[in-house]
């Protein structure tokens, strides 16, 4: 199941494991990324918590957790080469994985069609 949030994040659910990334549109809007901060594995989070930070030349953007749960993995490879964060790779570049405690948290998110309509 693939869902999108109004904050331009995507969430892919596979059983109770949820991968989270930011959309191609979000990467395009941010521009050159100069700093990324990932959450710590094992952190317990609530839906809507700011768990990671992406900073571009111009501004800092928080990355929110789409659901309550526990951080199980982070994509440290992103930190090795920030220039690899491009609109083209945005749907493959997951940022963190979450063991979610309640799948209904994701029900308020949009499907791909609704998200595409939102960004025009």
């Amino acid at each position, binding site marked *: 199941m693939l869902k999108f949030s109004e904050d331009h994040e995507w969430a892919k659910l596979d059983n109770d494991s949820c991968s989270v990334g930011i959309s191609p549109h979000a990467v395009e809007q941010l521009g050159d990324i100069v*700093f990324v901060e990932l959450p710590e594995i094992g952190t317990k989070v609530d839906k809507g918590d700011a768990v990671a930070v992406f900073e571009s030349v111009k501004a800092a953007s928080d990355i929110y957790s789409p659901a309550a749960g526990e951080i199980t993995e982070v994509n440290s490879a992103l930190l090795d080469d920030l220039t690899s964060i491009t609109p083209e790779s945005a749907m493959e570049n997951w940022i963190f994985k979450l063991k979610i405690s309640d799948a209904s948290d994701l029900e308020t998110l949009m499907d791909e069609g609704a998200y595409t309509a939102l960004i025009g």
Partner: protein
Amino acid sequence: MDLKRTPLYDFHVANGARMVPFAGWDMPVQYSTGIKAEHLATRDGAGLFDVSHMAQIEISGTGANAFLERLTPTNLSALFEGQVRYSFFLNDTGGVLDDLMITRLGGHLHLVVNAGRTSHDIAHLRQNLDANTHINVKEDRALLALQGPDAAQVLNNLGLDLNGFHFMDARRFDLADIPLVITRSGYTGEDGFEVSIPGESATIIAERFLSTKKITLAGLGARDTLRLEAGLPLWGHELDETITPTTAGLTFALSKKRRDAADFPGATIILDELARGPTRHLVGLLANGARPVRDGVLLKQDGKDVGIVTSGGFSPSLNRPAALGFVDGSYAEAGTQLTAATKGKETQVTVAKLPLVKHRYFRG
């Protein structure tokens, strides 16, 4: 509110610009290559920026010198034909209402003021106007900034004779039968030019510049990182109604004659500050780690507030986070270690001398 468009709007869109609202204008923040690439291309070669959002105002009449001297600390009688000066409109407490460029050409004075301050500045000019002075806001003109070490070569290739044309000079040129007013000035710390063009011919001139294959189109994003590295102030950040030119490190723009006469707005406060030394100083800040520090972040040492970040971001030329900020006098020395509290996380920054990247103006 509808955003205003410069005469180059279609040119930007056709060239892949990402347009954003800025001070009431729809402006290119970057093109497809991105801010870092545009920045580095300007430092290494030449960048072309549309800065038509800045207002161009002509001041004429026999009262023009005296009129501008009532509002600024500039000695207008020492500004000769073909010269440009950096200046500011000051209030009675020595604060900066706006910073601007003043050019004398064709017997008139020509001002370029910040887009975000245009309506304020025009009201301020009108309020102080006398019968011997006239104001003409040139809404029909575009302004292009051609900046970088190859900028002069671009103009040479197009047949312009730059012999004897130095930093802060102004001249008229013709290109493709279009009359241009060019000043050798800019906002990047590099050699470069600002080119005032009749609006309807702006695209033709921009295309001519592009045809030399030596330039990269650059947006407001790169303009900001370039000026930050060059330590050049941005109104609303390093300058405002409460910040004096002395605090912002702009004492050079207070004419000696005007200082001696103490006859500009806020002179008592500014001259007193000049004699004693300002309590705060504008400094460069380099983050010790990879996390940028942003505007408004407080700077501390041993838990004590000693300053504030006014422009925070990233320096593509130094490839590390960089910022401008004000710090109390005893913390302004290069190498001073300070703590910036960013969103509950503390990062360490080092005070650095301005400019962060050396100016390369062409002084002949």
